[in-house]
């Protein structure tokens, strides 16, 4: 696991366990990996293999039971939830399988959210530009319920890129889309990733999608293996 530039994401011996109704359950065991600046990195695995858990840990949404994770040089396990939130706001973008757009907000207002969190005065203009970039300049005033699945995911991508994050985490970005729409959305995701020089960490069970990434690993029963 190597790369030319310095690692933006470094994971050392990370384990995650939860207490379930049938006792302790190990979801991740001794995971170790590095993702370098500007790299595209795919984590592949079957349902229930722990992909989303790992993604949550990498993005600082959750904390590991054991081990260390460093995001852009910051040791996540040493930060409290507030400090991790600060880090996410500055460095991270998200694309979710189920889009997670706020139904009460228009497409434009959804894209404005990360900018408003940082207090940008030009949030509206930048959101407008981001929607233009994903081909939805004319659908700014539409609410999520008035958009198709593909369009909703494009709005989510615009939201993910609008504040120029260093790392973009994508959780099954095409999981809820048909093959053709999924392909278009992926093209867009990779194109923007390339244009912005963002590091992309992609979690998917779709091998074809994973193949578009420079590096790929597979999660099997909570352990990380190189993808065959």
């Amino acid at each position, binding site marked *: 696991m190597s790369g030319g530039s310095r690692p933006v994401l470094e994971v050392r011996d990370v384990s995650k366990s939860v207490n379930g109704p049938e006792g302790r359950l190990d979801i991740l065991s001794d995971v170790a990996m590095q993702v370098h600046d500007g790299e595209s990195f795919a984590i592949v695995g079957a349902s229930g293999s722990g992909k989303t858990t790992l993604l*949550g840990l990498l993005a600082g949404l959750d904390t590991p039971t054991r081990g260390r994770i460093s995001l852009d040089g910051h040791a996540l396990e040493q930060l409290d*939830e507030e400090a991790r*939130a600060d880090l*996410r706001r500055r460095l991270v973008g998200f694309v979710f399988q189920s889009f997670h757009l706020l139904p*009460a*907000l228009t497409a434009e*207002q959804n894209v404005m*959210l990360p900018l408003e969190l940082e*207090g940008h005065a030009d949030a509206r203009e930048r959101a407008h530009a981001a929607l233009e970039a994903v081909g939805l300049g004319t659908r700014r005033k539409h609410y999520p319920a008035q958009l198709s699945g593909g369009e909703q995911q494009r709005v989510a991508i615009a939201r993910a890129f609008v504040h120029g994050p260093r790392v973009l985490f994508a959780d099954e970005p095409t999981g809820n889309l048909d093959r053709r729409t999924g392909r278009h959305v992926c093209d867009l995701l990779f194109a923007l990733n390339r244009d912005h020089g963002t590091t992309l960490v992609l979690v998917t069970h779709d091998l074809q999608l994973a193949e578009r990434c420079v590096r790929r690993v597979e999660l099997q029963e909570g352990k990380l293996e190189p993808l065959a």
Partner: protein
Amino acid sequence: MKILLLALRSLRREWHLPEMRTLAASLVLAVVALGVVATLTARMERGVLASAAELIGGDLGVSAPQTIPDTFAAAGRERGLAVTRTASFPSVAFAQEQSQLLDVLATDTAYPLRGTLLIADAHGRQQAARGPASGSVLLDHRALVALHRQVGDTVQLGGRDLRVAGELIQQPDGGELVAMAPRALMNLDDAQQAGLLGVGSRARHRVLLAGEPAAVQSWHRWAQATALPQGGELITPEQTQERMRSAFDRAGAFLRLTALLSALLSGVAIALAAQRYARRKTSEISLLRALGTSRRRVFGLLLGTLGGLALPAALIGVLLALALSQAAWMFASQLFAGVPTVLPILPALAAAGMGIAVLVGFALPPLVRLADVPPVAVFRASLARRVRRFDALYLLPALVALALIWQLSGSATLAGILAASLGGVAVVAALLAALLLWIVRRIAPGGHPALRLGMAALARRRGLSIVQATALSPGLTALLLLAIVAPSLLDGWRQELPSDTPNWFVLNLQDEQRDDFSKTLAAMGGNQLNMMPLAVGKLTAINGQPIDSIHFKDERTKDWNDRQLRLSWSDELPPANTVSAGHWFVAHPAQAEVSVDTMWRDMYALKLGDTMRFNVGEGQLDAKITSFRHVDWTSFKVNFFLLLDPSHAQALPHTWIASFYLPRGNTEALAKLSRTYSNLSLIDVDALLDRVREIVQRVTGAVRWVLGFSLLAGALVLAAALATSGQERRHEAALLRTLGARRGLLRVAAACEFALLGLIAGVTAALGAMVGGWWLGRSVFHIKNFMPQPVPLLLAALLAAVVVMLLGLAGTRKVTHTPPMRLLRAE
């Protein structure tokens, strides 16, 4: 049956949903609020009635100017009721060289059946007593002073020597407004044997009864169906004299108001919870429809689920209401010391019915619409949310609210004012919210990002924000009416009888005695002297037609036609009078004019311009009606049904009547005054004033207690309503956390959002409560010059904003304290 099982299963699965719990909690709270208020109200009404019974000395009775036939007492005894007989008459008592006209009440030894007869012995020790035994008499302090007697001495009454067995401190009032003279209580048999009750006496006889409510009701029905002795009438607690009745009427109106507002608050909470539930169920229903479930079956399923929730919730509500009102009564009953009442069950059951009606009325519209979700919505959620510009179904909650207002207010005026105030407030709140949001949206506020985020969030959720402000405002108005306006209305009522309310009346004052009397009174420390001329005459004709030849529908006219009328005159409209039609006298009119009280107007069917002929002394006077007056008979001032214009009336033979306030403890001085001006009749209304004050005190205390409870119920319902709408924010907060928003930022943003929402609702509610309170005070409670204080209301509005903010923050607290990952998985 199958659908019911399915519905119950669905209910079991959905029980964990917050809106289901909110719906159930709202219903429980609605039933508890309605039930406790209704139970306490019913019990207090009984207490108030029982209190009125104390005034009469029994639960019910009959009075007549001659001896009442035994059948009335016998019918009472047959029903297991206790019976007492009394007779009241004026008589002169003698003691050595002193004599004094007394107002005598002759009773048997069972008297009083209700209330307390309090006497003091020779050492001043007070104790409760029964009617005096044969050979003894009870005299009040004035009688003792006037006759120079003490307890244990003898006085002569009706030619018999009677021993003064005690000083009369307090007695059930017997319904008499004014004790014309010092009082005495003697034995009925003694009075009979002394010939004081024989033919030609001016005695008023009474038979009073008391016992179990059912037996009293049975006797009441029997008496209504029986011919009363000539000139006789039934005495009921409701018919106690005017001042007391107005006190009870007001108490009833206050209680109904609190119950009504609590019910409306619950409706608001239920409507919000049902809306939320319907929204959550949309995808499930579209799936069921897609799988082939008919619209009817879907509707049946929803109704079954709602019913399965409603019935146990209503039952719990009833039990809680009964338990709470029983606990509440343990404190409230101190206000009705000695008045036994049982816990009524029916009001709580009726409250459950009303609670379910509120649930159905407020929850049905979104559920009916839910059944209309097309199967194709399973593919596109947007199809399930087609906007309807107008939906007649949404009039249902308004209709249920109106029906509740109508049912519980018991008065068209109260219903109208409340409906107009609350409806008006909702409209104003919606408009104000829309306007403010429009401004916020266009002029993005600078400053802290949290402030901007909060404002932006509020402006973006425009529809929901307007709905929330509109729902909160009538709720807050109801709370403000209960918390701020109602207590000051009660204070206004109490202040109508300030401590220096005239407590003495003086009759028969002559022209030449006026100045001296005023000076003597002032020297004694008397004040508030209000003197009016008094001429005694008779009404002989209306519009030239002799009064005896006119048939009036109102039976009371017969009584008045035979009576001596008291006429007076004044340049200025006397205090406690308002002209309701026509105009007050102009100076020196060509023809004599008369101003008539509205009760007389109705009784004699009079119109402006009619002419009334009065015989006064040797002469007669034709006076044209130029105005009608509303007279506040509760004011304890000298008032007249008929006022003449001074230029024509002052030549009539007359004396003067005056009211004044004299601090207590002047009995000796008054007795001296009475001897100096031997022609004067002095009338003490202190006892009556005390009684009215006591009633007002008791009722206001009890109403405050009920108000406190309604307020708590209202606040809980309001909190439930806010918690329901808080759900919307959770998803957003979770996402914002994921995108890196700090907890503090979210909290400040939510605080700004809720504070603005609370401020819109609070300010509108303060305005609504002010207008509604003023209107209620004027039109329902008839409290003069009542104006709700704006400062406490505005402070309360600010407090409401803070409370809404804190409640809103409490609703989002869970979100900001949970790792975003778990939240996102939970969604």
